[in-house]
């Protein structure tokens, strides 16, 4: 079984120790996915597995045979960058840019979670079928993505612009 990465099938590594992150970065040279801690603490390695955000550093590549992975390199569409990528530029949602791909992939995953009404730790009414987008919801849900330059305000502003008005 192969792993589908940004629409292209690739074979799982022979060495099962290879993480999904290292497969992306070292074998496929898809270095947009970043290694910040390699211990599941910073979120820089966030990618989408069948649309769900995960940490590729804590994933052995072999676990993802048969799955479909989207990385930052796979987010742009035919007609250019993803709206969230453009919003990150507009709102200065980064400085050094190292946590940025993880923040963006994470936010794309978060938007899907919000859209289906998944609650978070700050959702007051667990029983509600829908969740209202608020700055607090976005901040809680993005807390797995660390940023050391301090671009938090710009990141949340970019996410808000992109998703607050969407059908959530």
């Amino acid at each position, binding site marked *: 079984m192969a792993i589908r990465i940004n629409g292209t099938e690739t074979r799982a590594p022979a060495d099962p120790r290879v993480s999904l992150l290292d497969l992306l970065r070292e074998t496929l040279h898809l270095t*947009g996915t970043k290694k910040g801690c390699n211990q599941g603490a910073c979120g820089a390695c966030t990618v989408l597995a069948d649309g769900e955000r995960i940490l590729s550093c804590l994933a052995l590549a072999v676990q993802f045979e048969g799955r479909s992975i989207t990385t930052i390199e796979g987010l742009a569409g035919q007609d250019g960058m993803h709206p969230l990528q453009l919003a990150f*530029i507009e709102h200065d949602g980064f400085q050094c840019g*190292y946590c940025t791909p993880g923040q963006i992939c994470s936010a794309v995953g978060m938007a899907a979670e919000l859209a289906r009404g998944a609650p978070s730790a700050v959702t007051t009414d667990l029983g509600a079928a829908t969740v209202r987008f608020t700055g607090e919801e976005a901040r809680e849900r993005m807390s797995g993505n660390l940023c050391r*330059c*301090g671009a*938090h*305000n710009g990141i949340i502003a970019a996410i808000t612009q992109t998703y607050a008005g969407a059908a959530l």
Partner: protein
Amino acid sequence: MSILDNAKAAAQGAAQAVMKKAVELAPDAWVPGGKPDPLIRSKHGLIGAPISRIDGPLKVQGRAKFAAEFPLDGMVYAAVAFSTVPKGRIATLDTGAAEAAAGVVLVMTHRNAPRMNNMPLFMTAEKAAGGDNLPILQDDRIHWNGQPIAVVLAESQEQADHAKSLIGVTYAQEPAVTTLAGARAQGADIGMFQGQPLKTTVGDAEAALAAAPVAIDATYTTPRHNHNAIEPHAATIAWHGDELIVQDAAQAVSHMAWSLASVFGLDERQVRVTSPYVGGGFGAKTLWQHQVLGAAAARLAGRPVRIALSREGVFRIVGGRTLTEQRVAIGAEADGRFTSIIHTGTIVMTRHNAMPEPFILPTRGAYAADSFKLEVEAVYMDMLANTFMRAPGEAVGTFALECAVDELAARLGMDPIELRIRNEPAKDPIEGLPFSSRHIVEAWRAGAARFGWARRNPAPGAVRDGAWRVGMGCATATYPYYRMPGGAARMKLTKDGSVRVEVAAHEMGMGTATAQTQVAAERLGLSMAQVSFGYGDSIMPGVVLAGGSQQTASIGASVMAAHHALTVELLKLAGNDSPLAGLGADEVEGLDGGLAKRGEPDRHESYVSILARARRDALVVEAAAPPPLETQHWSMHSHGAMFCEARVNAMTGETRISRFLGSFDCGRILNPKTAASQFRGGIIMGLGLALMEETQFDERKGRVMNPSLAEYHIPVHMDVPEIDVIWTDIPDPHAPMGAHGIGEIGITGTGAAVANAVFNATGKRVRDLPLTLDKLM
């Protein structure tokens, strides 16, 4: 430092003192910045425009290449083994299993490492960049817990990491000093910083304190911190014969090329260090042992090497900010006027570095007082060399100073802002120099109005909102304007009228590439698209450290010099047939793609036309910035007024920052979009310093116990409120572009603003960072 070094430094100091006096007394016009940069006058162009980052599209698509992202043919991966004792010798070292492991190319230890010189210690020479000056795998000695003892190279990172775990080592331990008490017992020195002792005495501050009608005298402590840039240190290293090429994560490319050359006995021109993108630096991305280890191993193996430190590896071999224990005492008259300021205390460092965290620096310029006693004492431990971290000195020094001012205001029954303004100095309180630009009172007034300071209840513990106690606090932010010697720039004008500017500078997220493209385009009278800014390569001109918030000024002065040279050459080429004939370089300016007489825009010739008439494809100039004498002629600082609203849970002591405002006076702001991000970034790191950051150093073994982003807490999104930033935008007439670097000032004052807000919320004065909930329950 040795006694001899101290003597040398003192002699140097005496010579410097004579020079310094001459510069102080020189007429303004003789000093760089004496004639204001003409760009200060341009009001409606690119300078001050909120332009999005020019590297933004690359970064949001993951296409900006960082140091560990350059694959090389035949490249092998490195893993580093670290010592687990603080001092002694390696007794036995068994590398057999590691060498036999699959994929292993080399195991390098002190037994087989090439002979190398120690790294030149940062600040001991113009281009010295080393974090320590210890031997690197040259002998069996251990100097700190975490020191590299072996490097494994293998075909994959997994193989290298595994083989590293197979190395067997035992130590003959020797007594080590790893406790603060033990370090104190060994005696203390006055810290030497940039060749000067960290000791300042004006009058008899102790006597004035004793005589003061109102006083505060308290001790504040701050723990060790680590930079924790999200990009761990990494380098991709290759030898081509005797030439060394290093793709690095660096905030000092020229320094590192020179320093690596020194380590390997090469000529500086044989080493090239490039660093186009840096995933955060904050003072840490200089030369540490890993680049040397990687280069040595690459030479030994005859293969290019990728050495990417693990997060733990960064904690083990890249130093952080050291701990401080500070006494601040302020004596005041009943009207609040300061009669005495005492700021003394102790920091910990090592015998193999030169960074006595200079926490007294902010106190040297913040307030007027009749007497001062400022002193930093250094004690020594056997530990990893501590180093510069964002606003070294000021970040933790302002915590102590500005908490003390708040405590004094409470004793006086005065508003803490009014107390600060009452003690606003007319000139530099220590040096006596005039300020180049100081509008901190405006910053205080504007900030107070915007933040709603008037709504603050001065009584501590008086405001409650449900489960939360609510308080407001404020503090002064301050950071010097620095410009270091060595700045230079190259400009290449091509016949299509576009210009390439090159400086060996750095983009770690500060927005340098964007802002400097704006500045150069404005200076040249070109559009952004017609200017490209090259940086991050040691073969470019200039010795430009991205540190001390000096890069903006250093590049600015360098580009001014290069632009002047370009203008001189262009006027020569233009000759007598040009509308510009007869004009000197100071009489013209860049305008509409060419040169024009100042004030007479119609007297203009385009660059394209000048080069075409001269039959030139291109014109290249290179020039050095003048020595930074302005910093000795004026007292040059950035200023800020920080406002915090904190909510403290009455039951648990959890603290949440609900509002924060930074009101800054930092000269002219070149790009409000990227500048706001830098201010906010500094403030957010300051929130981390205030609330959660602490490197846990186990004094029993001198070992860092939380070398991890899970256990070393930095703020997450949920910890960060919307942070408001405003600025005076008043140009400093004596700085290039009228601008100051702003990368560090945001972290200054923030810790105190938080602690003061927490005091206002709860009535609890916490003088020991971080303000974790156990201290507030």
